[in-house]
């Protein structure tokens, strides 16, 4: 049996920043003053922060060592379900750092910043084209903020019609941000259960949808990796009762050029540019969560947006029914540039191909692993597949243990314990950028871990052992919080 890429190497220790350095050192140059010292009001001044003083090489070694304790997409396969950890192209980073773009100031007049406005305008257009929706705001900084903007659009729409709606339907498979975002807009989440096939029933929606319900918030493909086949009928029911349909676009990577979101009956959707459009996750951010709407809701989108007229590009503010700003400026602009660059690099054919290959990779893994791991919903999946640890219970091994053992073998584990409707869930999303031989090796390694669970479960219970640190005590961290040094 082949082994995974995991091994151990020389990893260096590194203290915390303030445990090194000497007063008087300096890590960056500061210009010498060419102006006289101004008078300073002693009543306003403080002592300045207690920062360590470090030299440039102290800084460089510190962060280089820290980086070596991390694992990224560039390091290896990162099959983290629902996160779309695809390759992040280098040219995107380079273009985002273009000096004219990086130095652009957001408070200047439109005439000074035609280039950055052009990028915004084009990206708005491309995202509308890819989803089939009519209008786009790029302001939301992340998926969750896109959801919030979308839910505020729901609220503004109902308010504009004099309709008071206090509830929102949210499937039990949903990501936790969905109910949290809806709650911020005064909507009480009403849980919808998925059926035995892992999708929503039309009747279940019909039973709950009433004229006090603002609409439905669903993810399609859903978090089980399954396409909500009844979406059009569900949307018709919601619309007939005066509600709106929100589509969480977290899983757009499965359906580019294949599904037309507007034709599904979706009125508002957000996209995660850090998933589908290849921008780096940065260890937690920044992301970008543009929100796309149908024509009737365009008037509620955040302001400003980029528009184009005979004189060029400009920012449009005059939208009296807008929900307002969700960002101090134009969202995470450097992330937007990267997504623009990705879409221009891919073009229409490759975007569609990316979705096809993402779905092929996931189905291939599902077929090849379903004898080794329990597959609660055995049906064709989209870009990710969800297993559970049911078969391993007899060995006293849980999902967490298998995940930790995968680390020793050189893989970032899949998403675990999500979605909540599958106990012990193991959610694998390979993405399209993994090639067949790497996927084959990953499959073999998972099979090896499953064999270890049977034969030497201790290996899993002790894992990981090849990392710099072993399992960390999360209970102690929460019981006795130490949040700063």
């Amino acid at each position: 049996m082949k082994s995974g890429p995991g091994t151990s190497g020389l990893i260096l220790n590194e203290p915390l920043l303030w445990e090194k350095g000497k007063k008087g050192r300096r890590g960056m140059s500061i210009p010498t003053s060419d102006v006289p010292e101004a008078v300073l009001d002693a009543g306003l001044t403080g002592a300045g922060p207690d920062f360590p003083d470090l030299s440039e090489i102290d800084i460089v070694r510190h962060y280089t060592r820290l980086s070596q304790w991390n694992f990224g997409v560039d390091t290896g396969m990162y099959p983290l379900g629902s996160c779309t950890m695809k390759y992040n192209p280098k040219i995107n980073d380079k273009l985002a750092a273009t000096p004219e773009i990086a130095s652009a100031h957001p408070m200047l007049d439109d005439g000074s910043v035609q280039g950055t406005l052009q990028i915004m305008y084009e990206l708005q257009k491309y995202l509308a084209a890819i989803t089939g929706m009519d209008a786009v705001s790029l302001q939301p900084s992340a998926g969750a903020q896109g959801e919030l903007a979308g839910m505020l659009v729901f609220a503004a729409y109902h308010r504009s019609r004099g309709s008071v709606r206090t509830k929102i339907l949210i499937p039990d498979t949903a990501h936790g941000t969905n109910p949290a975002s809806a709650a911020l807009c005064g909507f009480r989440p009403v849980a919808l259960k998925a059926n035995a096939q892992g999708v929503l029933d039309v009747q279940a929606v019909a039973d709950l949808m009433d004229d006090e319900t603002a609409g439905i918030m669903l993810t399609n493909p859903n978090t089980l990796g399954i396409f909500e086949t009844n979406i059009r009928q569900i949307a018709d029911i919601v619309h007939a009762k005066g509600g709106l349909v929100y589509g969480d676009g977290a899983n757009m990577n499965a359906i580019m050029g294949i599904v037309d979101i507007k034709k599904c009956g979706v009125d508002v959707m957000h996209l995660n540019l850090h998933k589908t459009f290849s921008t780096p996750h940065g260890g937690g951010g920044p992301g970008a969560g543009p929100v796309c709407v149908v024509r009737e809701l365009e008037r509620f989108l955040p302001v400003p947006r980029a528009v184009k007229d005979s004189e060029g590009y400009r920012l449009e503010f005059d939208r009296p029914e807008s929900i307002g700003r969700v960002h101090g400026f134009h969202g995470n602009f450097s992330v937007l540039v990267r997504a623009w660059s990705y879409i221009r690099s891919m073009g229409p054919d490759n975007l569609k191909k990316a979705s096809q290959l993402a779905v092929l990779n996931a189905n291939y893994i599902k077929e090849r692993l379903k004898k080794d791991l329990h597959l609660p919903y055995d049906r064709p999946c989209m870009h990710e597949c969800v297993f559970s640890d049911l078969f391993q219970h007899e060995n006293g091994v849980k999902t967490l243990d298998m995940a930790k053992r995968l680390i020793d073998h050189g893989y970032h584990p899949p998403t675990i314990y999500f979605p909540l409707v599958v106990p012990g869930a193991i959610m694998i999303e390979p993405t399209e950028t993994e090639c067949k031989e790497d996927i084959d090796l990953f499959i073999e390694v998972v099979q090896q871990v499953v064999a270890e669970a049977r034969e030497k479960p201790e290996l899993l219970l002790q894992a990981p052992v090849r990392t710099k640190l072993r399992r960390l005590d999360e209970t102690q961290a929460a019981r006795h919080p130490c949040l700063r040094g």
Partner: protein
Amino acid sequence: MRYLPHTREEITEMLAVVGKDSLEGLFDAIPLECRFAGEIPIPPALTEWQLGDQMREIAASMAVGPDHTVLVGAGRYHHHIPETIHALINRSEFLTAYTPYQPEMAQGTLQGIFEYQTLTARLLGMDVANASLYDGGSALAEALLMGLRVVKKSRRVAVSAAVHPHYRAVARTYLQSTGFELVELPYGPDGRTDVSSLQNMTELAAVAVQSPNFFGVVEDLEAAGTAIHAAGALFVSCFTEPLAFGLLKNPGQCGADIVCGEGQSLGMAPSFGGAALGMFACREEFVRNMPGRLVGETVDLEGRRGFVLTLSTREQHIRREKATSNICSNQGICAMIAGMYMASLGGSGIRELARLNYDKAQYLRAELEKAGATLVFQGPTFNEFVVRFDRDFAPIRQRLKEQKIVAGIDLGRYYSELSGCYLFCVTETISRQTLDRVVREVSL
């Protein structure tokens, strides 16, 4: 396409395992009425080199570029960024990692964020800082919502009119469907917030004041805090220019309960307003009401020091609609940059740099006054200030622009009563020579 590794043969082999004849067949379950018709209507693919040409054209269309001197701050500041930051932050172990949910393979991110939290707490004079929020605007909105959670049964929050107008707009957006009321406190003739109206307000949960404020004026935070606490509300101290706390008293020292603001100044380029960094800190007693991620110290199985995400029972993936916020990320890389920048400056460096910003801005302020400009507000300033001219400044500003200098912004757009008043910013990146040129044009 270089990002798509599958060969035709591999696709055929994989389809056979899956039991499909074609890639299209993978989507059989999708109803016909939901299908995308035709090709996605976007331009065809470009090679890396064509894309580079395209970007050069776009860059050339920027009338204000890197060879300009931009005397504008207003929430986004031009500071020198050391080359080390570019080199370190592009290490893809940081850049291409996900949220550190598997701490054993994310100790780099986790220690880096723990250090960011620590340096941020020290800079702001607070007990605890979180792992960051999206930007200064949403950080203010989250601070007000947090105030409403802490001071239960209160329905109202107040924000100074001298807080960045865009931040106030974001706060209004966040609160618009909550049923809570947001009121504005006026600014006085010295450019500082007038807190006298607080005496008559009831049911106040939180009051936000920015310092230095949008006019560049350093607020009397201690006095504001006393008045806010007397009104029974939490004191939210907001900022757009954290470098100021290298020199000025920090908000914690002045009694702030929650501190929030934008961290772009700490090593990030203006980049048309984003990526941004929402910095957020509070007093220890409020930590369980705090929004956003937190990294905490712990030990591994062998007792060695390590770091994990913690106190997640506040967060949406556990509490769902009862969470302290809907946020489920942080501005990871931006927070790492801020940590690197604060460490590169060090305690003595940040003081020197803050002093330099202060001295240069004071120099221009004084020279413009000598040249006939009027200081609109008499309050003390840091690296921004507002002036009015005794004649139309627009043609002078145009002449300066032809010399590649952007001289301030007109505040009329944000405050109708301040039309013709210009907000200037001077940082360490501006030479005295350039400042003298501005003064000369004004004097002509």
